[in-house]
């Protein structure tokens, strides 16, 4: 009986947390938005969340593209169809790897930073001070951070994809000696702009929404102690990674599954 009660309490806690996070999201974004006052804050947050994440995104995109080119070549050369490397690299990057890996890296690089920052603001009572002087912390602190993550992830994902494709091209054309005409032609024949590129971008938009939502909520809702902040940061990374991978399967099934 105790076990059952425990399960029930956990379920209720989860549901309550979900409700609180939805309320925060709604109040920060929908109720009384102030786009003009927010703009400088937004630019600042895009800098912290997006521009500073560029390096890790570009480097991992390059290496993932190169590894895909190398692995694809060693397998496809057995079947004499090594020209298909371009199509393999481009499709796997554009459809899957770019949005998913970008979102995972983004959760680790920017999501955890957002949570820690907001959590520390709460622990040092900066959020309550803001409220005291009549500034709504949801609008001043949460909303620009949320929008910044939402805007940055699709941009980062597109950069990841293009860098990865050129990394794959570098390996397969310049090092492994695949004829560059057939590399690009095969790629362009098989990749469809609307079905592949745009669907990949839609995925990135969804992941951007989910990851930043989790990050700002965990920061805002954390227990205001140093231990609480560390727990919240861990939760951000774990929950957003799980959410991204789970959602990716659902989105893929809807977009490409022909179910």
């Amino acid at each position, binding site marked *: 009986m105790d076990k059952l009660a425990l399960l029930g309490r956990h379920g209720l806690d989860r549901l309550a947390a979900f409700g609180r996070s939805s309320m925060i999201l709604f109040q920060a974004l929908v109720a009384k938005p102030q786009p003009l006052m927010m703009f400088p804050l937004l630019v600042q947050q895009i800098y912290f969340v997006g521009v500073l994440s560029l390096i890790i995104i570009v480097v991992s995109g390059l290496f993932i593209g190169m590894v895909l080119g190398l692995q694809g070549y060693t397998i496809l050369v057995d079947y004499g169809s090594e020209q298909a490397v371009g199509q393999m690299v481009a499709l796997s990057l554009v459809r899957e790897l770019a949005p998913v890996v970008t979102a995972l890296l983004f959760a680790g690089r920017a999501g955890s930073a957002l949570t820690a920052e907001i959590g520390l603001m709460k622990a040092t009572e900066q959020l309550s001070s803001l409220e005291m002087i009549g500034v709504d912390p949801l609008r001043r602190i949460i909303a620009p951070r949320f929008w910044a993550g939402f805007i940055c992830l699709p*941009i980062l994902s597109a950069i990841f994809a*293009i*860098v990865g494709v050129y990394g794959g091209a570098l390996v397969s054309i310049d090092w492994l000696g695949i004829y560059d005409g057939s590399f690009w032609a095969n790629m362009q024949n098989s990749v469809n*702009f609307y079905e592949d590129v745009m669907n990949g971008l839609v995925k990135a938009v969804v992941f951007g929404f989910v990851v930043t939502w989790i990050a700002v909520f965990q920061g805002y809702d954390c227990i205001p102690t140093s231990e609480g902040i560390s727990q919240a940061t861990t939760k951000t990374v774990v929950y957003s990674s799980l959410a991204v991978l789970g959602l990716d399967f659902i989105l893929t099934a809807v977009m490409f599954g022909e179910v």
Partner: protein
Amino acid sequence: MRMRVLEISVGAFILAGILALIGLALNVSGLTMSTSNGSYTVYARFENIGGLTPRAKVTMSGVTIGKVTQIDLDTDELVAKVAMEIDGNVDFLSIDSSAAILTAGLLGEQYIGVTVGAEEEYLKNGDFIEDTQSALVLEELIGKFLFNEASE
């Protein structure tokens, strides 16, 4: 000054994102901005389509002129009915054109090759290509070969 550097880098970041998207569109997916005169659909019936799939290309002399949009079973004649979307610029397919299902390379994808006939009248939206050649199915070929060998 610091705010200005920050704004410039954010601007460059967003620009890089847009450029990356354009690069994906033009370089990776081969999206062309050319203004086409729309497109029209013609149909063809095949005994056997082999591994033909929607989005396969339709070519003439190796040049892509359209794509396969739909494949379903013609319930009247019990053969496959393939809908092809032909580029509007290609409006000179005569009514006695023929369509064949070909294979790119030994293991490559299958596509439709169209050869133009001699008639003066041209195919319009919704017309059928009557002269078709089915896909080569390896098992059938081997079967025919064995049959010929046995009869000799």
